[in-house]
């Protein structure tokens, strides 16, 4: 890594650290200081869970091929948070994944969700399913379509790195009249999710489940930090764009040379 990249990385990390800590402090002190903008997918989750409880069916969360230790580690942690929040509310949850590294993490989160609800006796490891397959695998999508029917799930939340194969899962969910919330870091998968899922999470919205579904100040602080960084980035893009076009525009208007 060259010195310039190192310097920029350190600056970005320090800035993020500052905004995350400050955001958490502000969110803890004044809960309503930064109201979260409504996101339809997060609004739909309590309804999906409520429907599942009434029908005595599980809510299905799929993390696809995201796992720990690779480039998707942080996405995995964010998706796992979504699973935890769902397991905390739903009577029965089902998780599917194709990367085995998420198994210990999700076992622990599911157990903790049951402990939090004083229902540790209901914890069952079979609610976590491992379907071994490769990246963006059609075999994994096929396994999911079968699971939707066999387990009679009420609704599915698909997060991670799905590709176009997500269409098969969403199509199966639609045919079975099951709700769906989907998102993908892969742009093809994201487009499929937008067209076919009941509700969609786009881009960074995937990472803020904890803030929207819990009352945790640190999680809300992370959203404040994310918004602050986004505006700084927009400001940076605008400034650099203006700086880049200033000279050509000046030459065009007043004559160059």
């Amino acid at each position, binding site marked *: 890594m060259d010195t310039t990249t190192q310097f920029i990385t350190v600056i970005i990390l320090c800035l993020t*650290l500052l905004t*995350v800590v400050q955001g958490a402090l502000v969110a803890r002190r004044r809960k309503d200081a930064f109201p979260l903008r409504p996101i339809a997918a997060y609004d739909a989750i309590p309804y999906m869970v409520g429907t599942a409880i009434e029908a005595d069916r599980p809510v299905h969360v799929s993390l696809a091929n995201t796992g720990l*230790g690779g480039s998707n580690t942080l996405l995995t942690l964010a998706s796992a948070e979504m699973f935890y929040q769902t397991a905390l509310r739903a009577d029965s949850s089902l998780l599917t994944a194709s990367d085995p590294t998420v198994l210990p993490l999700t076992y622990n*989160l599911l157990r903790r969700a049951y402990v939090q609800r004083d229902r540790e006796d209901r914890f069952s490891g*079979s609610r976590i399913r*491992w379907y071994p397959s490769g990246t963006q695998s059609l075999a994994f999508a096929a396994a999911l379509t079968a699971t939707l029917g066999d387990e009679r799930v009420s609704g599915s939340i698909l997060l991670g790195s799905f590709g176009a194969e997500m269409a098969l899962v*969403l199509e199966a969910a639609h045919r079975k009249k099951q709700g769906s919330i989907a998102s993908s870091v892969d742009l093809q998968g994201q487009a499929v999710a937008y067209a076919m899922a009941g509700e969609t999470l786009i881009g960074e919205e995937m990472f803020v489940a904890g803030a929207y579904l819990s009352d945790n100040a640190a999680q809300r602080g992370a959203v404040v930090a994310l918004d602050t960084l986004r505006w700084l980035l927009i400001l940076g893009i605008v400034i650099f764009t203006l700086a880049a076009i200033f000279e050509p525009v000046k030459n065009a208007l007043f004559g160059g040379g």
Partner: protein
Amino acid sequence: MRRLIATLSTAIAMSFGIVTLWGLLAGGGVVTSLANILLQLVLLTVAVSILIGIINLFGVHFGRIRYREGNWGYSIIVILTAALVIALWLFNADDANMILLENAQVAVESALAGLVLFALVFGAYRLMRRRVTWGGILFTVSLLIILIGALPLRETAFIADARAWLLAVPVSAGARGILLGIALATIVTGVRVLIGQDRSYRESENI
């Protein structure tokens, strides 16, 4: 006790994270060597998690057979196939494993790939049928321009130009916007892990 374990796991995660980051930024020296050792430990953990995965696979499907859950017959096939693949691997019969892969998995995946097209077309049709929104209209119009613009016809040449512009400017900008958003969220999540705010390794909500 739980509080102690939670504090300990938070401390381990934070220190491992900081050392790895430092090793990545330093680009040499003792810290980088230490970071590499930690990364090797991750590989070991991955191997253990595969074992957990195999136990999970057999546990889930034996459970399905035992309680006669819906379509439990397929679970017998899964268990037999998994056992066969493991046995072939143990006896170093890689050729037989490849035949299984090429004749079974590749064939099934190819058939499914054909189905994806129909699922996508039906999905695009349903988008407008479900609810008409500005986003939906924009999505459908863009889709039509992209599809028609790809046709090798002289009559649709102007649509091909529109397609090229669409792909070069708004689609590219939108894709970059989404990826920048994901990158920002990843950095924020990473920093939260480094300062011990993430829930994954914390036992209690209050720590």
